[in-house]
């Protein structure tokens, strides 16, 4: 019996060690999140002022203490315009594609192929999307443009919208569709006025998650929208964006530019995290009711 009780004790010890390791792994992940957020606040908050939102990017002041450092106004406006255009494009394409997968052709061989490729596209390297859009919209038309940046972002957001749309629509009760069809409603009206409406909150979540996914994307913008040091509302020309400015400023030797990069990174991260949290809260509500 002593041999047996020794084995039990050993198993218990192994188990405790295992549970502890799992706990430590979780603590490491949470710790990384906390450390990154602390660094962001520490280094970003000193750069947060009205100037950041009201003046445009400019080159460094160097040692001149009297000069006022630039801000990020053009970058915020450029990012907002490109993101808005990208979201319009990706929501239209993604919702229709997700609807097709859920309501029409999802179970055909072609439907399985689309679903599979969409899943691959979900994790495809964003820089390759940027290069492909460069070949499509920058090289033939002779210049970088805000539209090219918006298309690149849309190509990254559309798979997210497609996936969430399909998942949400598939969750809707089929009795809803049957009830609509029994009243003689054409299928496209059933989809639009019944299924989409029933899925409303979930569809919004999908759009928010897609927005969170692309709003910090830098790589696809580098060779599509390029960047612009001046305030511009013209999407036919190069356009500034927050991530691209951060990329240029952070690898710079001038402390004032690095400061602006941290402030921009802080604002961007807060927006992305807030949108993420809102999306998750919205996604949780229907399950409760």
């Amino acid at each position, binding site marked *: 019996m002593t041999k047996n009780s020794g084995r039990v004790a050993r198993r218990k010890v192994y188990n405790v060690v295992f549970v502890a390791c799992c706990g430590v792994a979780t603590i490491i992940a949470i710790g990384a999140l906390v*450390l990154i957020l602390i660094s962001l606040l520490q280094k970003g908050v000193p750069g947060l002022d009205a100037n950041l939102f009201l003046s445009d990017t400019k080159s460094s002041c160097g040692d001149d203490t009297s000069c006022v450092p630039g801000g990020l106004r053009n970058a915020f406006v450029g990012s907002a315009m490109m993101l808005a255009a990208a979201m319009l494009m990706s929501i239209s394409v993604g919702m229709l594609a997700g609807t097709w997968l859920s*309501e029409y052709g999802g179970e055909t061989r072609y439907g399985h192929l689309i679903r599979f490729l969409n899943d*691959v*596209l979900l*994790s495809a390297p964003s820089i390759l999307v940027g290069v492909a859009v460069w070949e499509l919209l920058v090289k033939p038309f002779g210049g970088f443009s805000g539209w090219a940046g918006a298309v690149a972002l849309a190509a990254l957001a559309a798979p997210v919208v*497609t996936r969430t749309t399909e998942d949400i629509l598939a969750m809707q009760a089929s009795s809803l569709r049957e009830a609509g069809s029994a009243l003689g409603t054409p299928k496209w009206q059933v989809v639009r006025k019944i299924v989409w409406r029933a899925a409303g909150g979930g569809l919004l979540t999908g759009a928010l998650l897609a927005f969170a996914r692309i709003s910090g994307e830098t790589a696809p913008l580098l060779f599509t929208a390029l960047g612009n040091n001046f305030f511009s509302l013209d999407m036919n020309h190069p356009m500034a964006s927050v991530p691209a400015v951060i990329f240029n400023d952070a690898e710079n030797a001038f402390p004032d530019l690095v400061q602006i990069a941290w402030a921009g990174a802080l604002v961007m991260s807060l927006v992305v995290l807030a949108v993420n949290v809102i999306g998750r809260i919205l996604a949780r509500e229907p399950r409760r009711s």
Partner: protein
Amino acid sequence: MAELSPSAAAFKGPRIPRGAIFDPWFRWLCASAATLLLASLGWIMVSLFIGGLPAFRKFGFHFITSVTWNPVTEDYGAAGPIVGTLVTGALSLAMALPLAMGIAVFLVEFCPKIIARPIAVAVELLAGIPSIVYGMWGLFVFAPFFALHVQTPLMMALPAGTFWGDIFQGIPNGANIFTASVILAIMILPYMAAVFRELFLTVPPQLRESAFALGSTPLETVTKVVMPFVSRGTIGVIMLGLGRALGETMAVTFIIGNTHAFPKSLFDSGSTIASTIANEFAEATSEMHTSALLALGLVLFVITFTVLAIARGLLSSQRYQ
């Protein structure tokens, strides 16, 4: 029934419901949106192939085997970035995999229900932080810390010339293949943990309960019942994490040091395919330079597509949605 239905006159209208003519249109619109997704993936491949063709034609296998990457002499060999991509991918995976499994097991098996949800959300928020912020954090916070407290002591302790001394050789500035892998590991960790968690939740509770009923400890239940049940999915998660790590751009660009040479040690600076494209594409000096970068992109596309395709295949066979 009679009082429910309106008078027969109401039925004189058209037999086909109003608006039904738009049915095929709407169906066609949805189908073409789905096809657009297919087309965009196809275009990525075609554009990289066409753009990279001149470089492939000129250099052939030399492109993959040579370590010379010289825009001045127009001699491009991509072995450095390709190996850098594979090494950082493998290293980050080796670090993230045990952590991701640990988090998932903790959340599913051990964690009190009340705090499981907030922890899961916090881990998922880690995935929401933009790549470029990881890059800045790596460059300004993690790399200096690592250089001062890990790299320098290690290099002092290990004599040069020995096996370990060679592996940990490098410039102590924290910008190297190893730190890039650590940052990558933190970035892919939340994705892998989330999918692992969903995989573990697909294990039927009866299986788990019968293991406990036979007197298994939680450790034995996890390793002998839960893990075997999701084994195919596990490989899927590994591939998914690897696919993410291979294609990650901005964070790596910040911290890997950006040299095209073949990396000689863990603490040597290097480059990945994605970081090379990010650094050089906008300033490519010649047609051949652009073409070489596009060819590099095609190599990355083929690698990640294969890895992600395997991942999705295995995960869907687990009936993971």
